[in-house]
C-alpha cells in the first residue's frame, strides 16, 4: 500500500500512516512517502506500538520513503 502524504501539514502524515497500518491486511506493507521531517521520528514510534518495523530511505532532498512492515511478513525489498 502506497500512502503519499507529501505536502500534508502536521499531524496528517502521522495520522495517515497509523490509519494505513491499521487497515493493512495480512502481510501487506505500507510505503509512506513524506516530505515532513518530524514524521521520521513519530511514525517509527507509532509503528513500533503496532508491532511494525520501519525503514527510512531518503529519496530526494527533503523527501523520504518510510517502509512499514509487520515483522512476520517479508522484509521490504530495497
Amino acid at each position, binding site marked *: 500500500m502506497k500512502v503519499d502524504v507529501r505536502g500534508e501539514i502536521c499531524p496528517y502524515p502521522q495520522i495517515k500512516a497509523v490509519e494505513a497500518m491499521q487497515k493493512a491486511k495480512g502481510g501487506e506493507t505500507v510505503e509512506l512517502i513524506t516530505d515532513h521531517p518530524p514524521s521520521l*521520528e513519530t511514525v*517509527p514510534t507509532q509503528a513500533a506500538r503496532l508491532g511494525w518495523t*520501519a525503514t527510512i530511505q531518503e*529519496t530526494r*532532498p*527533503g523527501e523520504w520513503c518510510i517502509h512499514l512492515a509487520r515483522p512476520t511478513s517479508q522484509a521490504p525489498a530495497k
Partner: protein
Amino acid sequence: MTTIATGQTQQAVPDLRRVVTRALVVALLIVIGLAVAGVDPRLAVFWVFGVTFGFILQRSRFCFASAFRDLFLLRDGRMMKAILGGLAVATIGFALVQYNLTPNLAGGRLPFNAGVVPLGLHLLLGGVLFGVGMVVAGGCTTGSLYRIGEGYVGSMVAVGGMLVGLAFIHFTWNWWWDTYISHLPVVWLPPSLGWGGTMALVLLALAGAAVFIMWVESRAGAFAIVRPASPRQSAADFRGKLRSLLRSVFVQGWPAIVGGVALGGLNVMIYLFERPLGVINEVGRWSEGVLNLVGLPPPPHVGGVGPCAITDAPPTLLTWGLMINGGIILGSFAASVLAGEFRLRVPRQGRRYGQSFVGGILMGYGGGLAAGCTVGGFFSAIPSLGVNGWFFGASLAVGALLGVQIIRRIS
C-alpha cells in the same frame, strides 16, 4: 525496530552547485548580521540569537504544538519531555538572572522584562484559543515561522491568519485592559517563597509533569520510544570522526531533548543580554504595519504588560523582535539547506489552507489576548517564576485537546 537506509540519495544536483548554494546561504546570514550591526550592534546580537533559535528549532524538529497535541493524539510525550527539559534549564538560569536584577525581594518590584503578566481568565480564553489554533494550523507561532524557512507554504498561510487575529486584538485590547486585565493581580513567587523555595517548587512541578507524561505514554502500550539507528560510521581516523560529527549536527535530525535543553539555555543567554524570548510581539507589530498600510490604524494601546506586550509599534523597522523572528525564519532556512532538506512543501488539499488560516486567526487573537504565545506566554513565562505560565500552559493543553477532536474530523 527502525533502520535508516543510508543509500546514496539521487544526486541530481552536482556537488559544486550544492556547496555554492550552502555557502551563499551562510554568507547571506553574515551579511545581514553585519548590515544590522552597522545600525545598532545590539540588533546584531539579537540577530545571532534569532538565527540560532531558528537553527536549533529546525535541526531538532522542535514543535510546541506537537508537544501538546501528540500527548492526546498519539500518546507520545517525546516532544513535551524535551520542552520540560528546556523549562528546567531555563528556570535555573532565569532565577539567577532575576536574582541579579532584583536581589531585594522586599521592594515589591518585578525583575525587568520578566515574563510575568496579570493572572486571570483571559489567559484561559487566550490559551484555549491558541491551543485550538496551533493544532488546527499544524504549528504554533514559532513553529510556523521556522517552517516558513523550511519551505512550508501552509505555514505562510498560518502567519497570514495570525496577522488577522492580531488585528482584532489591536482594536479590542484597550477594552480588555480597561474592563478586566488592569484589575488583575500579578503573581510572582519569589517574594512569598524565596528564591530557593520558588526554584524547588517549579522544578518539582516540572518533575511531576514528566511523571504524568510517562503515565500517559504507558497507556498506549509499547512503552519504549524507538530511535532510528543512526548509520554508524565506525571511523578510526580524526577526519572520519569529524565528518561523522558534522553530519550529526548539520544533516541528521537532533534528538528533541537536545533541542529543548539548547533552547532553554539560549533563553537564559538572551535574558542575560536583555530579555527572554518572545515571538508574537513582533507579529503583532507586523499586523499593525499592515493595518496602517491599508488605512485602518488601530488606536493607541493602554497598559503594556510583560515582554510580549501589545504596545504601540515603534516607528523603526528594525527592532529586536524583527531580528528574532527574521532570524528564526532564515536560521531555519539555512539549517534546512545545509541539511539538504529544503523543499517547497505545498498542501494539496484546499481545506488545509483554510485550516492554516483559521488556526492562525485563533492563534493571533489568543496569543495577543494572553500577551504571549507558546514562547512568551509559556516557555519564557514558567522560568520567569510567575504563576501565569502554568495557567496559560494548562489552557494550551485544554485547547490542544479540543483541537485534536477537530482535526480528527477534518482528515
